[in-house]
């Protein structure tokens, strides 16, 4: 209740609204994902209170989960990755003139799952944070390794490329003064580099500028559905068909959201697969089954809530968006972690309660606004992209009033463009970049404690389990490759 008294202050209510609206906008517009949007808005939060700014940035994150489904359903363009699955059945429903129920169930599903997710977060965050004190350097190190392994394992393209990006991120994070001995590392005697490079210019470059450059090449042809969006609300039958899908989606989402490495995306895929398996009529999936919309949408929203658990209790951001949010916390002088609840109860409970309030706002906003969002899509790229570019440039400069940061951002913009072109993902880089300093410090502390022996990593139970999971994941990823090679080898033997 204490939290609500903070979340309901007019100022915070306003930021919650701004965040939710911007989030929905970001979700609807293809191209700018939530990480880009949060990175771009980071400099603005300097001028407002800590609680207010975190509330706003968090609003963008879960707001995007709502908005993302809208375009998936209406025009078959996922607003962001977690809504890719929604396209499968959602667009089919829209073609059949049932866009209303599809949008309706996804909005309600998101609301129900989002709200339940926040309740779960409130219930489990405190016990989890107590457990977090047991986490020493060994455990943290292993956990970070697991996070990085997950993000590479779950990458969409080549895992090798993802690992390369991961290492690049780690290397970039080492630029600056050594955290223990203050020795300059990879700075080439450039004083600006003593401080390392900032997360904001890197993220804005990779996700903002990179996106703009890629989009400059494409002439986006959007095929709008001609069918009129009729009744907005799902019928009784729709509800009956999708209620268990909602519940299962919420549960799957909540559990997977806690895991590091893009949990909400996996959650939406997994819950869709689960629904198809338990369904009495699996043949309907892909042809406009309402469960196919309800379950992934509820999954990605409850995952969005539960992914705050590792961030707020362990200080480990489970995905890219939250790693930028982690940066926002640090900029405001707060280190998220086991002591966040005790040291900054106003921030912690305020943000959590605001997520509850935000979910209500989103539901109220989204239902009547759905027809309007489709119109926003029509903003021509020639207006939209220069604006984003301008916004990034001003943002990067105003963080530290430093032209150096602007150059860093431009370099990463070009890099982001090249990465996109050659199908390297930015996510592992940013996650590794944010976790790098933690990894560095914890590894060194752990090795000092165990006098240089690596065995402790495999003796301490929590650390041993997490490391084993990472190793298993890495090994299992090489199986298809080995299999292919074996087959090739056998074939060549047969030919002889």
């Amino acid at each position, binding site marked *: 209740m204490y939290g609500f008294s903070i979340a309901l202050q007019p100022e915070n209510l306003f930021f919650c609204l701004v965040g939710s609206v*911007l989030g929905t*906008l970001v979700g609807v517009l293809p191209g700018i994902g939530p990480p880009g949007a949060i990175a771009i*808005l980071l*400099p*603005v939060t*300097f*001028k407002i209170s800590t609680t207010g700014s975190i509330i706003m940035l968090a609003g963008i994150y879960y707001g995007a989960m709502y908005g993302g489904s809208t375009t998936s359903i209406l025009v078959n363009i996922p607003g962001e990755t977690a809504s890719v699955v929604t396209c499968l059945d959602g667009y089919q429903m829209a073609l059949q003139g049932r866009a209303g129920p599809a949008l309706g169930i996804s909005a309600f599903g998101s609301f129900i799952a989002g709200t339940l997710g926040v309740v779960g977060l409130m219930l489990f965050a405190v016990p989890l944070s107590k457990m977090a*004190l*047991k*986490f*020493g*350097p060994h455990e943290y190190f292993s956990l970070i390794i697991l996070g990085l392994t997950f993000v590479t394992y779950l990458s969409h393209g080549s895992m090798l490329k993802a690992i390369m990006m991961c290492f690049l991120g780690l290397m970039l994070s080492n630029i*600056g*003064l*050594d*955290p*223990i*001995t*203050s*020795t*300059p590392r990879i700075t080439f005697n450039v*004083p*600006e580099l*003593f*401080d390392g490079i900032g997360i904001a210019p890197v993220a804005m470059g990779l996700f903002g500028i990179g996106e703009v450059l890629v989009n400059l090449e494409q002439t986006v042809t959007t095929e709008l559905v001609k069918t009129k969006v009729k009744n907005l609300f799902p019928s009784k039958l729709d509800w009956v068909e999708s209620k268990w899908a909602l519940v299962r989606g919420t549960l799957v989402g909540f559990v997977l959201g806690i895991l590091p490495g893009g949990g909400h995306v996996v959650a939406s895929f997994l819950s869709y697969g689960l629904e198809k398996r338990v369904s009495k009529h699996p043949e309907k999936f892909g042809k406009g089954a309402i469960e196919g919309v309800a379950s992934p949408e509820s999954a990605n929203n409850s995952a969005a809530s539960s992914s705050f658990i590792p961030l707020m209790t362990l200080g480990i951001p489970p995905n890219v968006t939250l790693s930028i949010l982690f940066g926002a916390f*640090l*900029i405001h*002088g*707060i*280190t998220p972690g*086991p*002591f966040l609840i005790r*040291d900054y109860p106003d921030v912690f409970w305020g943000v959590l309660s605001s997520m509850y309030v935000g979910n209500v706002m989103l539901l109220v906003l989204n239902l009547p606004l759905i027809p*309007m969002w489709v*119109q*926003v899509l*029509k*903003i*021509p790229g020639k*207006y*939209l992209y220069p*604006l984003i570019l*301008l*916004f990034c440039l*001003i*943002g990067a400069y*105003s963080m530290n009033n430093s032209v150096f940061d602007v150059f860093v951002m431009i370099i990463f913009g070009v890099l982001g463009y090249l990465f996109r072109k050659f199908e390297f993902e930015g996510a592992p880089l940013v996650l590794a970049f944010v976790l790098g300093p933690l990894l560095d*410090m914890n590894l060194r*502390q752990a090795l*000092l*404690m165990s*006098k240089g022996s690596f065995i402790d990593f495999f003796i301490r139970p929590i650390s041993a389990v997490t490391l084993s999971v990472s190793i298993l994941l890495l090994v299992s990823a090489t199986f298809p490759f080995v299999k292919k090679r074996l087959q090739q080898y056998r074939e060549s033997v047969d030919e002889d």
Partner: protein
Amino acid sequence: MKRKVKLSMLFVATVSFILGQLVLFEGFARCEYPEKPVTVLVSFDAGSTSDLIARMLAVGAEKALGTRLIYENRGGGAGTVAMALLANAKPDGYMVCATPTDTIAYVPLMLKVPFKPLKSFTPIIGMAAAANTALIVNKDAPWKTFQEFIEYAKKNPGKIRYSSAGVGTGMHVAMEVIAKKDGIKWTHIPYKSASGARMAMMGGHVEACSAGAEFVPSARQGLVRVLATHGEKRSPQFPDAPTLKELGYDFTKETIHSMFGPGNLPPEILNKLEMAFTKGTETPEFKALIEKIDCTPAYLSSKDLDRYLKELWGRAEKVFKEAEIIKEPATQPY
């Protein structure tokens, strides 16, 4: 069509509103300092003594200065990471750094740092003395007194691991002095702040902690036990804990939490900052905090602080050499 235009306008309006905020808050150019918010680097992580003191200063200082103070925690290298940044900052008065004097007079003796401790900075003000840092252990640890702890450490070389706020801090030096005199081998685990070091001990990851003044509330709650304090006199909060000096070690930790600007700060800017931060130390809120964390008010003007640091460097160099912690200073002061 009309609707489309309207919506595009709406989007443009939203964006320009946010941009407008950015520009407005930066403030329109006035010709007198300060024209915009002043960044205060804090040389240890959030929650450390430096951090608590620096943040409480804002209450009075912001009003006196007429602008906001923006705090940035840059922990690492026992405070020298933040100071290296300050050494390279423009002396325009928009960046200052809050750090304990350890960062100037202790750490550079032991580590080669990328600045000249007595030349690269303009001392602005000394705020509070934190001499009563202490050697602490968990409440359920087997050692009830300092002697028991030392006995155990002597008999079990390499078994004791202790955490501190970083290499070269007064807390680390105190442990080194003990180790050299008694021939003890123990392992130092440096953290980026005293609070991080204390948490590691409370989580059971190290046996002891050479703790910063921020440990006081946890000791009063009975969570940790104080074995010895590092100050000149016994701490009034823990009268039962002996000082290192009483125990026969030739080391008295002197730490004054201070505020620094980059070298060659123009006198008119220095005066304004000194005045504003002085006002900051005079508020009841600031005084209450100082008392709560077992620090004592130690107001030093810019000139006094400068002289104090030069003397402290000399004293520290002598003690460090006599205790055989160093042979020669790792960094030259000028």
